[in-house]
């Protein structure tokens, strides 16, 4: 299937897939898009397919090129759904030189380790590096974390064609291939962004800085429809999605969210004291939420925008209560690295919850500089005063310029 002059789609269709990578659902299956680009000196293969679809991939490749003509293999991303056919392709195309991102060598080594495939040679490429195929030039754009560290895009200059890898992709299988021919895939596009790209929105914004200035005739992603009609609409949509999800009424202020659960009111009183202490510090907007009163999903939106988070939970049978874990296990969809975190809670017999929450926060790469607070059963005035102090310390930490924190470290 021709995508542009001398450019062919050589990917594979997987219409029966319903769950991708354990976590993503799809009502339409998916496609593994790979491409062949012909120049006067040789042919470049851009990405491959999932290993079990190799047969389909090689049949399509053989229809447009001989293996001896393949001089370049471009790997925009080494995840197995795009690199599955690589070892066999290296065996069949002995002249091919591999081009991959500067962040990819560790993964490249791990990928080839169990095989006997050896590339003729490989080059690590970065933004601005080019490959001349003879009258056609491939230019690389380093776009790390969209959605792996190694992800890059490859731009075919003469055609204004961007091989965008997972960027602008979606799990949607339709043999008509092109966005002006396939069924309605808007939901799949949005869903894919929300699950794959959202945790990396700062990196999305940086990648768009590289992509937006390009002359774009077509975007050819590694999954889902090829975007030849109004490709820039999808770039604009990514720019919107990478912005703030909620209107920020606390603009110019730092934000602290205090989440709690409470069976008899003790942890609630601790939460109220943490919040009240934080409120005393100017420049910090504090919000208090009872986790019993909400679903995890909208809280995730709040967490994404917050600067600091404190979690209060009683201990039940040696553990924190489930709604805390429901929220703390839903945060892989957003970036929480380096946010400020803290834990507190009342307990009856043993008080493991605070420690367990702190461990989880550290595992998520929160900063947890202040020791959590535990109160046996009903908190005393002194213990509530400790909670107010914790709130103040958290708030002061949030409004202290980073440079001063570095000095104090």
């Amino acid at each position, binding site marked *: 299937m021709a995508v542009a002059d001398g450019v062919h789609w050589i990917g594979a269709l997987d219409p029966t897939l319903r769950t991708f990578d354990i976590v993503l659902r799809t009502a339409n299956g998916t496609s593994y898009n790979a491409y062949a680009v012909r120049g006067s000196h040789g042919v470049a293969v851009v990405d491959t397919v999932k290993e079990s679809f190799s047969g389909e991939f090689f049949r399509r490749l053989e229809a447009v090129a001989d293996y001896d003509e393949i001089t370049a293999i471009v790997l925009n991303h080494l995840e197995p759904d795009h690199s599955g056919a690589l070892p066999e392709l290296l065996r069949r195309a002995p002249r091919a030189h591999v081009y991959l991102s*500067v*962040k990819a*060598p*560790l993964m490249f*080594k791990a990928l080839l380790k169990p095989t006997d495939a050896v590339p003729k040679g490989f080059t*690590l490429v970065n933004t601005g590096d080019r490959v001349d195929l003879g009258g056609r030039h491939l230019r690389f754009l380093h776009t*790390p*974390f969209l959605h792996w*560290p190694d992800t890059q895009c490859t731009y075919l200059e003469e055609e204004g064609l961007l091989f965008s890898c997972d960027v602008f992709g979606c799990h949607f299988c339709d043999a008509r291939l092109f966005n002006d021919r396939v069924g309605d895939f808007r939901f799949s596009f949005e869903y894919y962004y929300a699950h794959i790209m959202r945790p990396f929105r700062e*990196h999305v914004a940086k990648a768009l800085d590289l992509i937006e200035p390009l002359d774009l005739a077509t975007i050819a992603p590694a999954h889902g429809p090829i975007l030849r009609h109004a490709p820039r609409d999808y770039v604009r949509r990514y720019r919107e999605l990478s912005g703030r999800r909620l209107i920020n009424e606390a603009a110019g202020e730092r934000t602290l969210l205090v989440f709690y659960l409470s069976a008899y009111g003790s942890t609630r009183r601790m939460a109220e004291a943490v919040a009240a202490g934080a409120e005393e510090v100017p420049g910090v907007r504090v919000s208090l939420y009872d986790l019993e009163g909400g679903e995890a999903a909208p809280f995730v939106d709040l967490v994404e925008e917050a600067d600091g988070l404190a979690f209060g939970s009683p201990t039940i049978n040696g553990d924190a209560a489930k709604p805390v874990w429901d929220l703390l296990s839903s945060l892989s969809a957003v970036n929480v690295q*380096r946010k400020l975190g803290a834990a507190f809670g009342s307990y009856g017999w043993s008080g493991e919850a605070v420690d367990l929450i702190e461990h989880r926060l550290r595992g998520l*790469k929160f900063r947890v500089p202040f020791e959590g607070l535990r109160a046996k059963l009903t908190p005393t005035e002194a213990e509530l005063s400790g909670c107010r102090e914790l709130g103040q310390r958290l708030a002061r930490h949030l409004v202290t310029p*980073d*440079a001063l*924190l*570095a*000095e104090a*470290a």
Partner: protein
Amino acid sequence: MPKAKVTFEDIGVTVTVPAGTRLIEVSERVGAGITYGCREGECGTCLTRVVSGQDNLARPSVLEDQVLKDSFAPRHHRLACQAQCLGGEIVVRPA
């Protein structure tokens, strides 16, 4: 406490930090362009070129050396999540 002066060439910012600070901690605070992943010396994402002042960074551990080798890192490259500033002046930029 001994201090080190770190310059991030890509954004033209110089900051003074206490000895022992890891490059990634400073880079993140000043908004330099060093990307990172695990922050534990495993993934190699935060590979950084040390333009000058190599000797003002603590020497790489055996594990960091292995990741640098497997990443085909050229000379004077370090993992920002591992490299600790010792003192003096250090100039870095994203690899």
